[in-house]
């Protein structure tokens, strides 16, 4: 089996290349059932990271995984994928639907995090409030909390990402991924 091509950091200059109009709008804001998923990406000193990029993959509300093209020109299609660069305050957001669990599994958003200074992408999960599964249950309470979205008073979902330090987000390694 061929060895995998290694990763390198996304660097500081992706902002003119990877973001595109509508990248974070899986649904138009204000669409019935639309929810805002948002958070802040922070470093080991607790400082917001203004040059991070978050990508999101999710099922639709019924737990079906879209295999639909059109994320770059959505034209009303729900593709279950989006991308959001952080702003000057390290904040990112998506407008989307709350996913259903796939094939009876717990409901979560799958996220990938990139940043200048981060030499390879990181995977994590943002579970809907109250969701449980074997993976989540197997984590100590402090770590589990880092994977749970929080329902805000305005109905939105908050998911903060901490790359390092207190409350460091649990990142995932899948089988076959070297470390």
């Amino acid at each position, binding site marked *: *089996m*061929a060895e*995998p*091509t*290694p*990763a*390198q*950091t*996304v*660097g*500081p*200059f*992706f902002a*003119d*290349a*990877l973001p595109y109009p509508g990248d974070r709008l899986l649904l138009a804001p204000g669409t019935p059932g639309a929810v805002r998923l948002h958070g802040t990406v922070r*470093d080991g000193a607790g400082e917001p*990271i203004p040059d991070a990029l978050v990508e999101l*993959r*999710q099922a639709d509300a019924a*737990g079906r*995984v879209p*295999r639909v*093209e*059109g*994320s*770059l*020109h959505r034209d009303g299609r729900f593709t*279950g*994928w989006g991308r959001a660069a952080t702003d000057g305050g390290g904040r990112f957001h998506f407008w989307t639907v709350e996913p259903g669990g*796939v*094939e009876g*599994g717990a409901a*979560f958003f*799958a996220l*990938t995090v*990139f940043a*200048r*200074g*981060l*030499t*390879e*992408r990181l*995977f994590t*999960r943002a579970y809907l409030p109250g969701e449980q599964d074997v*993976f989540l249950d197997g*984590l100590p309470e402090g*770590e589990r909390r880092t994977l749970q979205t929080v329902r805000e008073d305005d109905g939105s979902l908050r998911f903060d990402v901490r*790359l*390092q330090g207190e409350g*460091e*987000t*649990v*990142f*995932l*390694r*899948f*089988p076959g*991924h*070297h470390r």
Partner: protein
Amino acid sequence: MATQLESQSVISEEIARVHAAMLERPGGAPQPLTDFPPYRSSVLRHPTQDQRHADPEGVELVAPVFGHSDVDTVEADLTIQHAGEPIGERMVLTGRVVDGEGRPVRRQLVEIWQANAGGRYVHKRDQHPAPLDPHFTGVGRCLTDDEGHYRFTTIKPGPYPWRNHHNAWRPAHIHVSLFGHEFTQRLVTQVYFPGDPLLALDPIYQSLSDPAARERLVAAYDHDLTTHEWATGYRWDVVLTGSHATPLQRPSDREDDHG
């Protein structure tokens, strides 16, 4: 007064120390070290806890899908995006994308971005006092074909200075973003050029402690790709990580069944 920046020799010694320590570790290191102090920006941005092992499920088994409604074929040519021709060495970058099992990654999105021939990015944060090229943005996209091939026409990027340490210069490189069959196969990396003397000095390239892994990021000059009186040619193939889905879950395999 600005912080005193370390010299290249201090950074190079740090790189050599980390590489020597990694040699002691069994199993090699095919991916970059996330904790790699010679790359100063990594110090506060790498996780300190071990990544948690997880079996991919649901959405994690399915990459996003892209198609011709997403990407126009002209986006693969970075030299025709403006009214005039960009300055620099016109070149082709092409290769094949396969997954860890060697299956071609078909009709999938490849994105690139890069500096111009003078080593300057369009990005507003790039302060390098080299000229912008009004005819070059340095951003391209394409879809792989049915055998997993991608192809871009562009301008060979120049090296550029950065502030990791005193007199720090990045080797010429093109940033590449790739998707596979599964969400877990996502890859963002950089492709370099053969014989670049800056490679040995660069803490980003050297965040790969394994020389064989570093070599996989260097494109090969291929004279058969070079075209008469037009462009030089570079070949760079990509292998993504292995897949997890069973054969029945793989859309590309299902398509094979239908011819």
